[in-house]
């Protein structure tokens, strides 16, 4: 690959070009490899799939208390009945989409916006809501309370 006798300035020029090329190649490779390496590291929040989510840890809720958790892009309501049973439903009121809450004193789900009431099966029993709340399935897995959408039969 050489020319005839490389003179000193020519050799310097060659070294410069080689250094430039080598440095550029290294820098560009680094800029490709760096994102790939970070990509390979799994993110801290594991994606369980669009259909289920860890709503709480066991022991987080007592009988008669509830918690709003995130299910996909909408809020969900996890509650523990007086008998100690977990229930999970959509927390989006079917009237005008306010976020509902569990009322331990009424044993019903209540919407503060217009006083709508649902029973613990999600059925709209009083007030403006025209349709029931969507009910989800709850499983306890180890120390996690997992909420998932009802599977199609």
């Amino acid at each position, binding site marked *: *690959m050489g020319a005839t006798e490389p003179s000193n300035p020519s050799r310097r020029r060659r070294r410069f070009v080689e250094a430039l090329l080598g440095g550029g190649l290294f820098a*560009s490779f680094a800029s*490709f490899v760096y*994102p*790939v390496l*970070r*990509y*390979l*590291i*799994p*993110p801290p*929040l594991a*994606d369980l*799939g*669009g*259909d289920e989510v860890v709503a709480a840890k066991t022991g987080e809720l007592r009988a008669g208390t509830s918690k709003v958790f995130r299910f*996909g892009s909408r809020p969900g309501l996890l509650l523990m009945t007086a008998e100690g049973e977990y229930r999970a439903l959509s927390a989006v009121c079917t009237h005008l989409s306010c976020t509902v809450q569990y009322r331990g004193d009424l044993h019903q789900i209540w919407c503060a916006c217009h006083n709508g009431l649902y029973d613990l099966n999600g059925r709209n029993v009083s007030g403006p809501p025209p349709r029931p709340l969507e009910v989800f399935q709850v499983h306890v897995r180890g120390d996690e309370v997992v909420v998932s959408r009802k599977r199609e039969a």
Partner: protein
Amino acid sequence: MRLLARTGEWLGERFHWEELIGPLAKKTVPVHRLTPWYFLGGITLFLFGIQVCTGILLLLYYRPGANEAFESVQYIMTRVQFGWLVRSIHSWAANLMILTAFAHMFSVLFLQAYRKPRELTWISGMALLFLAMGFGFSGYLLPWNTLAFFATKVGTEITGQVPVVGHGMMVFLRGGEDVTTATLTRFFGFHVAVLPGLTVLFILVHLALVQYFGMSLPPGVEARWKTNPGEARAMKFFPNFFLRELMAWYIALGALGALAAIWPWELGTKADPFAPAPAGIRPEWYFMFMFQTLKKIPAKLWFLDGEVAGILVFGAAGGLWLLLPFFDSMAGGRGRRWVLGAGIFGLGYMLAMTVYGYLAK
């Protein structure tokens, strides 16, 4: 550089590798006004390599299946570190690759590199083009968003219109009568296993043929150099032409990075099979000319249903296109003129119908 040389020596004591790559080391590329067109094949190959790499990276997080696919792509785009970059590069490079594949094909046609003895190279290349479009069609569905779902529905519907075998083909593609999660699974299998396997095979054949026959000379240059041998110029493939190719590849990389960062690929909304099709469903741009043609064909052409007629015409055109090299040598010089004419007409038609398809919203 010295490390490389020493590795070479070590290997040379064990394998006669210099004999194997000898032809490659001696390979030359003719230098003339139209030499830049020789880059297109290499760029397409490079983009395919990018697709394989980004595709493998996406495979680490993507989940096929109607209830998970969209969410997994959303996960990649929003939670995986640089997932947005990998996915956007994959989507942009896919389109770029098909663009360069078409450009490569047309340049081969107009520079008449398909002539004897390179007919098989042309055929293997056309097979690669069809495989690339298959990649595009199957990959488009994988994010399972609304546009992709309906585009796939329409596309497979059109396949179903082919006489006799159409319905069978459609059911085979869809994994059933409708586009469902079974379709997604099937397309996923095509996209990551079947098509890559076939493509690698055809690439090897295509490259082997290109190496065997060497670079073709456009007829005008060929004639000139025959009369004036002194005018003939060539450069070595390694390192000269390859270094230039490397420049082209780096430009492509830079373009991909810019496209991914400034215009990241859209996620869309999750497909709902029970919702009505939104307005403005259209396929990807490389299918647009066919789609627009089928839209504009009148409902009935003689006794044939318009859409069926259109599909048959495209099928016939594709078949003839595949066999272009064989028409070239027919009827003396006339065959060649027909081929070139077909090429100009084909390119013009595709460009016009694609533009028309986008303007006629």
